[in-house]
């Protein structure tokens, strides 16, 4: 069959947004035919090995480097005291307030180490193996100091992590609805509930986790050109460049920072690291390209950790179950230093403990505490999973207290779909949402009533394998963040994002984004957005990122910000390209710009078939042979977008867990996630984000925990002991979406990078507790190992027998 086409008229391009395109970056990523930092080999390149402290807290009384310096092919060896004045500092970019107490954080310890794993000497050699051999020859003398490892003990201040600070309390931060005028007095609400209602008091533990990205961190620094070129496995090339310049005195213009393909981060690469700074210093000292790639053991020990909180929660409710107030007291373990945003991570929970609920009074206090452990910073969700866990466990406990279904109690308290926009008791305004719709869909997919019936049957029969159902109706705040809000929170940077579109002479389109993907699939999703916005084929769009010499402006990727902020910048840049094209197109068509309309990639004279494609206009602009007077021969455009608000994805997750009461082993039976993330650009990418996020959150509930012994050594220091799941350990999840588009960005998107992780942890624990609640169990600490589940049952039964 032959198709005839009128000249100048093409078929309208397929709508790209909403299409489940496979990720264009995956072919090179999954075959390994790509550029990871550790793949980079430069002429004359040297390699680094780090000597790290085995002690959690010690004074360095001597470092003998003579034997290492004499070892074969060793080029340089240096210690902290030798480079104290030139090594720069590791940034604490979210100090919360001027009162915050934070220890100095040099890349390499100068005279004292504050956690096991801290770097005390650097060896530079012609090969990595030779550097490691020489590192073993370095003799460090330590004078051990008392170390404070346990978070609660640290809060008592009897042993100090940093004696010079005089306290372990770094900062205390409070949000109070009565003081802020967003609600009532929480103490009054609790007092009232003690008289006439219900008060639920619980203490929950958020165990310490390790981000455990797939690609270990790696940095290459080439000092041989006019600019220092830094390649690094980082989420934040733009911020790292700024901070490297700001803390080492090297002009920012002399630093080119490149995040090549980066294999995962989950917040673990949202950091400027001692290893990056010391590699930079080694390259400066030797004048040669230098590489450092960490081992997995080093990664687990010294890459920053996540979570690690104690949560004391007091919830007040009426006898019917309407929540009237919540008081939150957090203890947050910072570890030995305050990381780039670590000081503020717990604070993000302030707007999330109230979640999707309406209540009268609220007070949130978080106390940041220093200990002699690896420092804690952002990890997928950062502050929001912790808060969501606390409130979703608590709402379930309230339902149990009332003898009601946990979904019924939630519905009694949540914001109804016709109440948006809604300003919460924490002062945040949610633009859109529909909790009823997500919950209805989730129940339907789950077979809620059938599983409840099975649960009852197993209870009645005394089945050794009991069934439990866990609920998590979460929301989160994505799109970090409006710059003005960040300024009010004493955050060190803004929250805008930048995009640029270059119309190439052949009609191809280069998209430059300030976001820095490390597994998210931006190259595909951004291509889809631009293809639609400019009406050009998907294949004609190339997305460039991560190199500060190409992507000049940007604030990188974290906090589910890339699509909602970076995507909006992209839309605005594309719209500017169209506006720039109009005068030239009008000139080409001998029409008035006002008479042109843009659709399907064509600028067309309204009411006629006369038109040109934007790609043809790009070519005409490049030749510049026939331009209207005064018109620049260039269609390129950029946009920098600062959001006006966060976005608020939400959803209802339902989980069924089987608990073997004889052994305590749990098994996931069913998991349904219905997420409202607004409009979806690429359903396949979203599905990947949701599935991966779910596993990460489930893993917190069941498997992962960073454990230190009393001396501060990381006991779970390899992947033998730090349990990560594989596909063999999970089931096939059912995922679906309801949609209430965000009203604060053009595409109506909300962000999805962290949703699964935030929602799933409480769903799983709620299900496990639900399975054995009739045996007297009211809580099981995470991770819910078989031993802990079994002991919880044993103890409950012992209690019942007394």
């Amino acid at each position, binding site marked *: 069959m032959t198709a005839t086409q009128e000249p100048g008229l093409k078929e309208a391009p397929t709508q790209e947004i909403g299409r489940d395109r496979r990720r264009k970056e995956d072919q090179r990523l999954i075959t390994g035919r790509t550029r990871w930092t550790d793949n980079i080999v430069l002429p004359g390149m040297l390699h680094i090995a780090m000597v790290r402290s085995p002690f959690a807290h010690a004074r360095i009384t001597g470092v003998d480097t003579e034997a290492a310096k004499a070892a074969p092919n060793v080029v340089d060896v240096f210690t902290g005291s030798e480079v104290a004045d030139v090594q720069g500092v590791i940034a604490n970019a979210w100090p919360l307030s001027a009162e915050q107490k934070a220890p100095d954080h040099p890349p390499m310890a100068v005279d004292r180490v504050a956690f096991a794993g801290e770097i005390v000497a650097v060896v530079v050699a012609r090969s990595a*193996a030779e550097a*490691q051999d020489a590192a073993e020859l370095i003799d460090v003398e330590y004078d051990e100091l008392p170390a404070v490892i346990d978070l609660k003990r640290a809060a008592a201040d009897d042993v100090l992590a940093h004696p010079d600070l005089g306290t372990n309390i770094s900062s205390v931060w409070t949000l109070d609805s009565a003081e802020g005028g967003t609600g009532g007095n929480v103490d009054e609400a609790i007092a009232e509930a003690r008289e006439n209602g219900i008060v639920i008091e619980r203490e929950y533990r958020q165990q310490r986790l390790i981000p455990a990205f797939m690609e270990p961190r790696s940095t290459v620094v080439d000092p041989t050109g006019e600019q220092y070129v830094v390649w690094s496995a980082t989420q934040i090339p733009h911020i790292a460049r700024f901070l490297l310049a700001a803390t080492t005195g090297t002009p920012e213009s002399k630093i080119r920072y490149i995040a090549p393909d980066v294999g995962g981060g989950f917040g673990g690469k949202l950091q400027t690291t001692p290893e990056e700074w010391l590699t930079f210093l080694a390259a400066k000292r030797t004048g040669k390209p230098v590489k450092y790639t960490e081992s997995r053991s080093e990664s687990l020990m010294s890459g920053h950790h996540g979570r690690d909180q104690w949560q004391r929660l007091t919830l007040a409710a009426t006898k019917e179950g309407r929540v009237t107030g919540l008081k939150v007291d957090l203890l947050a373990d910072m570890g030995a230093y305050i990381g780039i945003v670590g000081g503020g991570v717990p604070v993000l929970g302030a707007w999330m403990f109230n979640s999707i609920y309406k209540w009268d009074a609220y007070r949130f206090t978080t106390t940041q505490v220093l200990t002699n452990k690896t420092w804690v910073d952002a990890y997928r969700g950062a502050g929001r999973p912790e808060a969501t866990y606390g409130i979703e466990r608590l709402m379930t406990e309230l339902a149990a207290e009332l003898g009601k279904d946990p979904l019924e109690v939630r519905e009694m308290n949540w914001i109804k779909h016709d109440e948006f926009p809604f300003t919460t008791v924490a002062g945040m305004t949610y633009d859109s949402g529909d909790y009823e719709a997500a919950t209805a869909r989730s129940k339907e997919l789950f077979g809620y009533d059938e599983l409840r019936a099975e649960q009852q049957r197993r209870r009645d029969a005394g089945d050794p394998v009991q069934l439990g159902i866990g609920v998590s109706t979460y929301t989160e705040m994505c799109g970090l963040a409006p710059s003005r809000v960040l300024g009010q929170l004493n955050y060190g940077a803004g929250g805008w994002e930048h995009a640029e579109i270059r119309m190439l002479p052949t009609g191809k389109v280069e998209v430059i984004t300030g976001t820095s993907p490390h597994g998210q699939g931006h190259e595909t999703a951004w291509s889809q957005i631009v293809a639609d916005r400019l009406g050009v084929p998907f294949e004609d769009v190339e997305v460039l990122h991560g190199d500060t010499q190409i992507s000049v402006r940007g604030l990188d990727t974290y906090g589910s910000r890339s699509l909602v902020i970076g995507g909006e910048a992209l839309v605005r840049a594309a719209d500017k390209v169209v506006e720039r094209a109009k005068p030239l197109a009008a000139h080409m068509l001998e029409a008035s710009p006002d008479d042109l309309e843009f659709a399907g990639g064509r600028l067309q004279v309204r009411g006629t078939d006369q038109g040109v494609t934007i790609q043809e206009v790009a070519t005409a602009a490049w030749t510049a042979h026939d331009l209207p007077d005064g018109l620049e021969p260039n269609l390129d455009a950029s946009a920098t977008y600062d959001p006006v608000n966060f976005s608020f994805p939400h959803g209802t997750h339902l989980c069924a867990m089987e608990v073997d009461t004889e052994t305590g082993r749990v098994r996931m039976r069913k998991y349904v996630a219905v997420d409202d993330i607004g409009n979806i650009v690429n359903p396949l990418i979203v599905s990947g984000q949701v599935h991966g996020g779910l596993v990460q959150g489930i893993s917190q509930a069941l498997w992962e925990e960073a454990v230190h012994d009393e001396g501060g050594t990381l006991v779970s220091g390899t992947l033998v002991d730090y349990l990560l799941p*594989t596909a063999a350990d999970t089931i096939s999840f059912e995922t679906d979406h309801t949609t209430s588009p965000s009203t604060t960005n053009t595409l109506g998107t909300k962000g999805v990078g962290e949703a699964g992780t935030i929602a799933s942890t409480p769903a799983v624990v709620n299900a496990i507790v639900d399975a054995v609640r009739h045996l007297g169990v009211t809580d099981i600490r995470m991770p819910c190992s*078989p031993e802990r589940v079994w002991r919880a049952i044993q103890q409950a039964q012992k209690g019942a027998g007394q």
Partner: protein
Amino acid sequence: MNPAPFEYLAPTTVDEAVAALVEHGDEAKILAGGQSLLPVLRMRLNAPEWVIDLGRIETLRGVRDAGDHLVIGAMTTHDQVLHDPLVHEHALLVTKAVTQLADAQVRHRGTFGGALAHADPGGDLGAPTLALDATFVITGPSGTRSVPAAEFFVDLFETAIGEDEILTEVQVPKYDGWGAHYEKFVRVSHQWPIIAVAATVRLDGDTIAEARVGLTNMGSTPVRATAVEEALAGQPATPDAVQQAAAHAADGTSPPTDLNGDAEYRRHLATVLTRRAVLAAAGRNGT
């Protein structure tokens, strides 16, 4: 990380390998698949001067029928054992254990003898070979000797193999017609077992005529649950009878305490999992 420097030898005969061991003694480590040794070397937990690789000694590979027993060459990979029809027919318990041993990659590199000689109390092969009364054939400068399984495992990472000796083969008596089950208790699939129970039984109608039960990670060596075996003999293969016998599973054991559970919990698990393993080996519903 890279291992510390070492010299590498790859002999092609057992005699050459033994000669190398005699020469280098305690400065040498044997590489027999490398699934445990290489991580140890790369993390620099050990830095031997010599690594003697047995991978090129062809005579150490393969499974053969030797009449009343099977001979499993020490350098036979787990994957070869897993798919060997002789093992499946005559020593089903071994097949059942290897099915759950680590993952496919490890099974293709790791070897039967290497894992046993490493003697990790969490290893999956100790309990089955102990339960099956296997014989370990060891070759050294003064010739070859046979050691019964009950004497082979000495302590944590310690066996009857001398410094200048090599484990060359494992002889497993035939257990034709015996049912078998390996009940492995892990939190994630690729984990070493918290504990595991290897059980094989011979039924006479509905009665358990004989049973062999070995325990993994219930002490510094694999443990034979003899009290359970004795209690099972002549009992009906019913949940109640098996449960009563399995209650003795932890008798005399000294299990470790670690991140995955303390000794008390392991003792409890041993009784539950022994009941399940024996019932499953008898073809009854494990629960």
